Structure formats: C-alpha cells, structure tokens
C-alpha cells in the first residue's frame, strides 16, 4: 500500500511540473499586466516603471519562472501583487470556505443520489425509475448559478428566510454560520445529485443482471437484502470514481457559485486574480487545484479495493 502511494505521488511530480509550466505561460500570454491595470488611465510612465520593478515584472519571463519555482521548492508561493498578502495565506483563508460547501454538498448529494440510483435500477423501466431518470435529467440541466439565483429569489427576496450573500465562519459565529451555507450547498448539491444518481443507477443495473444476484434471489433473500448487501457494495465502485471526479471538479471550479453568493472562497479568489492579473495568486491557486485533483484521485484509488475486493493495490 505504502509503495503504491509513493509510486502514485511520484507520478504526480511531472504532472504538477507540467501544470506549473502551463499555468505560468498561459497567464503571461494574456495581454496586460497588473501594474498597467492598477494605473488604468493614469498617465505616469515613471510610476509604471517603478511598479513593474517592484513586482519583478521587468525581468525576463524565464527569469521570473526560475524565481517562482525556486521559491516554490522552499514552500513560498510568493506574494499577491494586488492584495499584498502571501499567496499561501490567501489560499489558507479561502480554501476552507470552498471545502466546507463542496464537502457538505457532496455528502448531501451522496445521501440522496445513492439510494435514488439504487431504487431506480431496481425499478428499471417502471414508474419509479422514470421519475428518478426524469428528475436527474432535469437537475443536470439546471446550471448551478441559475439554481442559485432561483434559491436567492425564493428564500432571500420573497420569503426573507435566508441571507442572499455573505459568509461567517463557524469558528466565529457558531451555528449562525449554517445560515450562509444552506443556499449555496443546495445549489451545488442539485447538479451533483443528478450526476451521481445516473452513475449509481447504471452500475446498479449492471450488477442486478449478474448471476450471483439471481442466485441470491433464488436462495430466498429479501429484495432489501439483495439490494443492500449484494448490489450496493458492488455497484458503488464506479460511482465512487465519479464522486471523486465531481469532488475535484467542484473544489477547483466553485467560482461561479461563490460569486453568486458572494462567498470568500478560493474559486472567487482565482477569478478575481485572473481579472486583475495577480500572477502569483493565479499560479498558486491553479497549482493547489492540480494537487487537489491528484490527491482526490489518489484517495479514490485507495478506497476502491474496499468496495471491489478483486482489485489489489
């Protein structure tokens, strides 16, 4: 197991290096730099030069890359140009917000989608299946930002039950923090439910066709036992892969929902930093996202043998 983890992590090194190279090159390929954006229409070439010098932008791009990578190797992600804060500190402040929402949404989605997918497979081609399939098609068709806007309109604007924006950490305000998470978590969960349900349904249908299920039924086991004991564990493997991918995707791409609900998460930080050409923050965030993908997939791979004993690491 340990050797497998080490092997996987060492495989991630070239991936992460290529990501750093791409990220660094791509952000600099976008026209404009933070100094000129900060000055806007202010006509002061002397100040512009001073700013470029202080941000290290007057050096050649390869030199900037070497400096960035050498700092990275010592654990220094650099300093935000626009916010004048260490990048790692910014990520440390914003990532928990994103993680809180994404993990809560994923947990909630699994809680609903796994039984729903199993039920739909069991009811294949009957009304119950149709309802689940139609429901998941509908949910997957709703973009999370649109769901967010609808939720804001209903619960914030019309019913005045929940705040439409903002965030307060649990550590500061306790359970009041929950109030800010309800709508974004629901908005994210809806799309996730659809994806996980469809996968769970498909893999459960496959399992239900296998001989050992027929054998279990022939033995006289109850349908409940057939489903929970023999179908669920075997069908969950492929679903777990999808959950891992969805989780990685959400952790990386929460920008839209964070913007709609004004949450100070990492996605919003990344988008704002792209607009302001805050190179160190963009590079830092994208690097963390790449690492998250690698780690999420690694965790999924490590969990796989639990659900499918045929697989060995």
């Amino acid at each position, binding site marked *: 197991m340990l050797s497998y983890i080490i092997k996987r992590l060492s495989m991630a090194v070239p991936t992460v290096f290529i990501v750093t190279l791409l990220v660094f090159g791509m952000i600099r390929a*976008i*026209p*404009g*730099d933070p100094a*000129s*954006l*900060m*000055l*806007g*229409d*202010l*006509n*002061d*070439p*002397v*100040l512009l030069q*001073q*700013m470029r010098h202080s941000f290290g932008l007057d050096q050649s791009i390869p030199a900037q890359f070497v400096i960035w990578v050498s700092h990275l190797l010592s654990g220094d992600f650099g300093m935000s140009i*626009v*916010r*004048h*804060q260490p990048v790692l500190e910014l990520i440390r*402040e*914003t990532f928990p917000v994103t993680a809180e929402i994404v993990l809560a949404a994923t947990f909630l989605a699994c809680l609903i989608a796994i039984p729903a997918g199993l039920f739909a497979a069991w009811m294949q081609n009957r009304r119950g299946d149709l309802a689940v399939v139609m429901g998941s098609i509908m949910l997957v068709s709703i973009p999370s930002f649109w769901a967010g*806007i609808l939720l*804001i*309109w209903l*619960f*914030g*604007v019309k*019913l*005045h*039950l*929940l*705040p*439409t*924006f*903002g*965030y*307060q950490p649990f550590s*500061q*305000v306790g*359970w*009041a923090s*929950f*109030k*800010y998470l*309800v709508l974004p978590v629901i908005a994210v969960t809806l799309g996730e439910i659809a994806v996980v349900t469809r996968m769970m349904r498909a893999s459960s249908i496959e399992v239900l066709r296998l001989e050992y299920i027929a054998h279990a039924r022939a033995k006289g086991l109850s349908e409940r036992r057939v489903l929970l004991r023999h179908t669920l564990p075997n069908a969950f493997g492929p679903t777990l892969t999808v959950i891992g991918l969805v989780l990685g995707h959400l952790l990386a791409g929460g920008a839209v929902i964070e*913007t*709609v*609900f*004004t949450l*100070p998460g990492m996605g*919003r*930080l990344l988008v*704002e930093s792209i*607009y*302001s*050409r805050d190179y160190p923050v963009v590079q830092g965030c994208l690097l963390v996202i790449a690492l998250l993908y690698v780690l999420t997939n690694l965790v999924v791979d490590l969990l796989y043998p639990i659900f499918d004993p045929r697989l060995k690491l």
Partner: protein
Amino acid sequence: MAIPVSPTPRRLAARRVGNRRIQSMKRAAMAGALAIAALPASGWAQPSAAAPAFPEIRFAINTDTTTSMPGNVLRNTFTDEILANVVESLVALKSDSSIAPMLADSWDISPDGKQYTFHLRHGVVFHNGTPFTSADVKWSYDYFMKPQSGYVCRGNYDGHRGPKVLAVTTPDPRTVVFELDRPSALFLTHMTEPRCPLAILSPASLDKNGTWLKPVGTGPFIFSEWKQGQYVLLTPFAQYRSRTEPPSGLAGAKHPRANVRFVAVPDEAAQVSALMSGQIDMMHISENTRPPSDPHWHVIAGPGADPAAFLMQTRDPLLADVRIRRAIALAVDLPGVVNAVSGGLARYNSSLTPDAEALYTAGDAVGYKQNLPEVKRLLAAAGYAGQTLTLETNRRYVHMYSSAVYMQSLLSQAGIKVKLQVVEWGTQVNDFRSGHFQLMSFGYSARIEPALMYGDVLGDKSKNPMVQWENPKARALLRSIDGVTDPAARKQVFEQLHQMMMDDVPMIVLNDTPDLTLVSNRLQGVTTWPLGLQRFFNVTKN
C-alpha cells in the same frame, strides 16, 4: 368526459395517511427553515461595542479595497470611497471641484506663487484622541514622500508631474509652510485628489517598525474593522469637530450619524437581490443596470465627471487623415447616441471639461453636429475606399459596449465600415496604454481639474503611446497656465483647447457618465457629486 372515481375507504385512509405525512413534512420543512432563519442574522449584526447607539448603513461595493492607506499603489475606486469618509486634508473639494478649507482654516500664497502658508484649525483631534498640529502635517507629507509608502501621487510633489516641494516647515503648531520650486495653479487641487489625497494622518497609523496598520485620521468616521474580501466597517468618530460651512462635496459640515459597512458583493445581480431582501441599503448602479422601480428604494442621479469617449488612433494609416476622423465625428447623431446609451440620464458633452465643473463654459458646449453630405465629401476627398475599421470595446462596462454597438451601426449607415472587437477589460487597458487599436470605446476616470485631463491626453505618442492627442501648440497652451490661478484665464484656455481638439478630432468625447446610486427609502441625506464617491456623513437611517 372524465368520470370522478369515488374513493374507497382504503383509498381514503391512505390519502389521510398521505395528507398527514405531507403535512408533517411541510411542518418539518417550515420548522427547519424557521430554525435557520431564527439563527442570529449574522456576526455583523452583533452591535459593536464602539458604537452601539447608531444604526448601520450597508453599502454594496463591487470589490473589496486592497489597502487601507490613502493613495497607496494598491488602491482602487472603493479605497478612495471608503477613505474619503475617514481622512481629511488641509483643503477639500467642493461639489463643483473648487477648493474649500478643511484642516486649514485659511492659507496665504506668496506673491511669486511659490510659498503656501496654511493656518491650521484649533481643537481638531485624531481618531486616537491625540491633538492635530503642524508636526502631523509634516510627518504625513514626509511619510508619503518615502518610496516605501507606495504613495501613487509622489510625482505631484517631487517635480515630475507638478511642482517640486523644496521644504515643509512648521514655524508653530498652528502653521505649516510649503515651499515650491515654481508656482503651480494645481498645488491645492493635488492635495484633494480623491485617488491620492495628501491625507493628514497620525503617526499611530504605523506600528513600531514603521509598517502600515490602518488610517488614524481626523475624518468623521473611524476605520474600525476590515475583514478582507468581505467588508470594511466605519464607525462615527464621537470627537469629530465639524466645520460650519454648508456641506458641499468633501467640504463643509460633516456629521456622522450611522455606522457604515462597505460590503463587497462582486456580482451586480447579487447586489440587487441583497437590496431587495433588505440586506443592503445602497449600491452604485450604471445607466444600463437599473433594477425595476420599487416603493422600497429610489435612484439618486447626478451629473458625473468620468468622460465616456470614442478614441481614434491618429497614427493608424487610415485614421491619420484628419478628414476621415472628422467624417466619423460628423456621421453620427451623438446626442442621440448618448441619450440612447444612458436612457436619458446623461447629456452630450463634447468637452473634456465636465459640465458640472465650475470651469465649464458655453464654448465647451459646442459639439459635433451630424452632417451626412459633409461626411460624403470628406470621405471622397480622403480617398476612403470602404476599408473596415476595428472598434474595440468590452462587456464589463455596459455603457462602453452599448456606445460601441450604436456607433458601429450608425457609422455603417453613413458608409464607414466598422467591425466590433469585444475584449476583456484588462486586455483593453493594455491596448489603450500601448496604442494598439484603431477605434476604441473607452471611459476615462474623472480628473478634478480640466488641466489634469488635458495633461493626460496630450503628448507625444512615440514617447508615450497612451496619449491620444499630439498637438505641440495645444501642449504649449496648456503649459502656459501652469502657474495661473485666475479661473477666468484658465476657463479661456480650456475653451481654446476644446476648440483645438474639436478640429484635430483625436477622440470624440460623448458625455460625462452620470453618478447613479440606488438607495433604500430608509436612508435620508444621500447626495451625489460628479466625482462619484459616496459620502456617508450627514446620512441617516430610519
């Protein structure tokens, strides 16, 4: 025709069970929602110990400030807006951009225009309770002039964008003297620039190591709390000693009557929904993003000072011919475009002097008038053969995009082929600064004196590609009023510059973008001013 099926006893029982289940589910859902709603509104709602008696005004801003230091290189528009309520300078800007006393009661200018002697107010204290003296003026000036302060307007005082300040002396605690290397009509104006005021700060704004902490100023509000990326909280300064003149711009009487929370809400739709749900009280809006009218709020509109302009690259092979540029200016009904883009809230103003300025004259009001026969004649004379021009714009600022769409359509009708190129704002700023465009729908930020605007527009493109207008005579004319303080003489020069610019057509100025604020009916005392910064003194909330 459908025949109703009479329910059997079993069905009825099942329905009752179902109804009970639905009702209990409904009850549970409602209880859940109410339980969540019953949680404390937010950490923000907890009354602050500093100012428990005041109501709280919540003002939505598009992005958080990135610094709390006035005029720091990291500043953005909202930094200026927040700090305009916190810090003060020796003088202040009035609504018409004229200068009024603030921390200085009066000042004398030596006959040669090189020495400014300020007589300071008595009884003013900083937010930390220490008294304000001339030593603080000198300390603040010295701090801003250090490169490590990151003060964006050092050039206004070190000689490269204005006069050089040779010395700042403090003959007594109530007097401070600035000595300049040459007379400057804009010395006092520079002190009031909203983006980089020469704010008078207490040394307590820094820590022991000289690192910036927060602004400890003399303004009506204290910079109380800053949660980065989320909000800034200002609380009323109990010991604030207001001036007695009528309020105007940032000058005159200022009375803080509420806590003010600047809440960062980047998405405009989210701002509107927050206003509709009562979570914010105010927000800036643009002409194109006005939400539907509602009895709970109203729009406060006033003239602005940010010129919306249609730039033409005079070094482009085609646009280098002034006849082509003139044809473009005469091809379009410009007042109609302004009216359509602004929804009737802005007026056509072809001058770089905003029409709300005290220096605006009847001569500035002369603009281009649509003349299609003249357009045909000019195009034919210039040998225009239907070449397509590229008009660059962005979607971030809707008025720029809308102007571009109207201009493209109307120019095409007049026989001038134009294609739109929509780019991201950062790319457009880059193209503006490097001069890589043919036509551009652009918006300048407000300058507080026409000389500053003309100064940023005029120049030599081979040395500085972001300037738009190359005319040595115009530059010389502008320089001729460097030391002229007489408003009548300055007005005359600005009028001449306007006429020269109309002849050269390096750009078409369309209008001054109006200052629009959406305000909850619970607020009283909100006013606009051309520079667009929201001031919260004298504003109350019911």
